[in-house]
């Protein structure tokens, strides 16, 4: 319930947060011209952001890295998380290697037979491409980053410095009614992003941003899985499983058609490879089907485990007091897996004025 409590405030100074520093720099460098090389370099890779404002507006991908842990490539078309372990490169290599081996050693054997194996080869390449494309999409796209500083309570000015004041009321977790009278929903204020987070949104400490419908931060794709890339994540898993199945089928046919298996070492290697690489995506997909069917995100499920470090060993059960659980497994699953993507709130290729608080 709402209480009229005294509102002494948490004081978050821009100077101490480092937020205002970027702005000061931008203002002092306002008149400086960026060299062509610097401009090209910034377009190719924007690691720490571009503080230089030639005009009153600047590209979003120049400013976002100053406040978050994202870095951008090719004019903001792709992003990844900097200052993290880049396991995504290893995952990418794991996906590419079998396709290359198959193309070099196996493909022609099946393609030139007269038993209609061409379709199987085609399906392998199709799902392999699906796996790679959606991996790139899920790992380099905006997961649903929410804008900053939308819900500032008060701003105090002192010696030409602006200080954000967080009222005491904003530090409480509040409960609000939902349609089902037996349930309620909890909202929390993010003191880093200065927003009232909608239900299911959470602040990712690795990406340093609040993500809408935050499922989890995936170290294997080096990005969060949220509202804007959840469906891609599922398609990526499906692609990984199907490409593994088809590489096993194709290579098994090759092994079956020769007299001695030792004459096709690459085919055997790829069968083993396929059997190994199907396990993790398979478990993960099953896990997400179970989670979404019970109306939970990974984050919500982990909260219910209380200290169990490996969630894979825990049985997925329906959470108590889950306002999102409609009671129907299929409906819950569709609700999460097919959720509509909101437009990107901070489109990396867009522009903003240098005074825009959402980028401070």
């Amino acid at each position, binding site marked *: 319930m709402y209480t009229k409590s005294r*509102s002494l405030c948490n004081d978050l100074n821009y100077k101490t947060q480092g937020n205002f520093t970027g702005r000061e720099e931008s203002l002092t460098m306002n008149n400086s011209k960026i060299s062509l090389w610097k401009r090209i370099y910034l377009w190719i890779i924007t690691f720490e952001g571009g503080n230089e404002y030639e005009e009153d507006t600047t590209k979003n991908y120049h400013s976002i890295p100053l406040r978050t842990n994202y870095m951008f490539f090719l004019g903001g078309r792709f992003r990844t998380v900097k200052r993290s372990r880049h396991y995504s490169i290893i995952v990418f290599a794991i996906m590419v290697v079998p396709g290359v081996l198959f193309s070099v050693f196996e493909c022609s054997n099946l393609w030139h037979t007269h038993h209609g194996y061409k379709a199987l080869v085609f399906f392998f390449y199709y799902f392999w491409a699906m796996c790679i494309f959606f991996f790139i999409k899920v790992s380099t796209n905006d997961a649903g980053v929410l*804008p900053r500083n*939308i*819900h500032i309570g008060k701003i105090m000015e002192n010696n*030409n410095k602006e200080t954000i004041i967080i009222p005491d009321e904003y530090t409480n977790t509040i409960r609000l*009614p939902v349609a089902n009278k037996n349930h309620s*929903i909890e909202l929390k204020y993010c003191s880093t992003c200065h927003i009232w987070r909608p239900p299911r949104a959470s602040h990712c400490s690795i990406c340093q941003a609040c993500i809408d419908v935050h499922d989890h931060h995936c170290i294997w794709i080096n990005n969060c899985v949220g509202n804007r890339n959840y469906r891609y994540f599922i398609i990526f898993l499906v692609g990984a499983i199907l490409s593994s199945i088809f590489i096993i089928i194709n290579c098994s046919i090759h092994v079956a058609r020769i007299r001695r298996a030792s004459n096709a070492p690459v085919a055997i290697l790829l069968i083993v490879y396929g059997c190994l690489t199907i396990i993790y995506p398979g478990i993960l997909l099953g896990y997400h089907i179970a989670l979404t069917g019970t109306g939970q995100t990974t984050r919500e499920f982990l909260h219910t485990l209380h200290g169990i470090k490996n969630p894979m060993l825990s049985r997925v059960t329906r959470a108590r007091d889950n306002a999102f659980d409609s009671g129907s497994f299929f409906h819950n699953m569709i609700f999460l897996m097919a959720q509509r993507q909101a437009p990107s*709130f901070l489109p990396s290729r867009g522009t903003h004025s240098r005074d825009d608080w959402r980028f401070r």
Partner: protein
Amino acid sequence: MENPQFFNYHEFSLDPEKNSSEPEELCVSHFPDIYCKPTRDGMINKNYRIVRIPRRFENTLGIPYFSNVLPGNEPAALTYDYEDQGFLPHENVDGIAYGISSFSPLSLYISPEEFQNIIDKVNRFLEEGFRVNSFFNFITIILDFLLLGAWDIVFNYFYFDSFQELERYVQQLNNSDLFKRNNIRLISPQKSGYLSLDFEVPTPRILRTNSEADSTSRLESASTSKITPHNDQ
């Protein structure tokens, strides 16, 4: 556990100045305008304030749905019997007037009916845009799957969805006579990430005449005070 009631979770209470004769806490129902162009020295523009319309969850959980009652009319809003007409400035703090109830300065410019019409329309656009069980959503997923993600790129170029229609509606609203006359503006909800629906209103300020300054009754001075909208844009 007691069932919670809906209220505007953006508002908070503020202690009046220590030397104030009025012990009552103020209710902050309007907030700094982060969307407005700052002053020349780069500080936040104090001529405008933001009234935030919160999201409600009784109707739907997965789709942003904004409260369609004017702030101050929510079930658990702070209200006083003598303040049933809307926002009444009570005291200036740092040159900005605050009331003691949940009513916001928006109630000075828009009637509850006009407000409900606007919000209902915004909610309809959002419902259409975020609806999971729609033909377009399933077609998009299937084509995205079949065309290896290429459909999403094509789709964004050629399909005008309800999010864009909502943006057009916001522009249309801001150009309307009601909004221009009252010098108010609805901020693009995409800009605020659909976290709240933000109305930009002129900063309410209490201008006291000498006779009012002599008055000992805070309530009386509030009710007779004038609110001065500032237009320096």
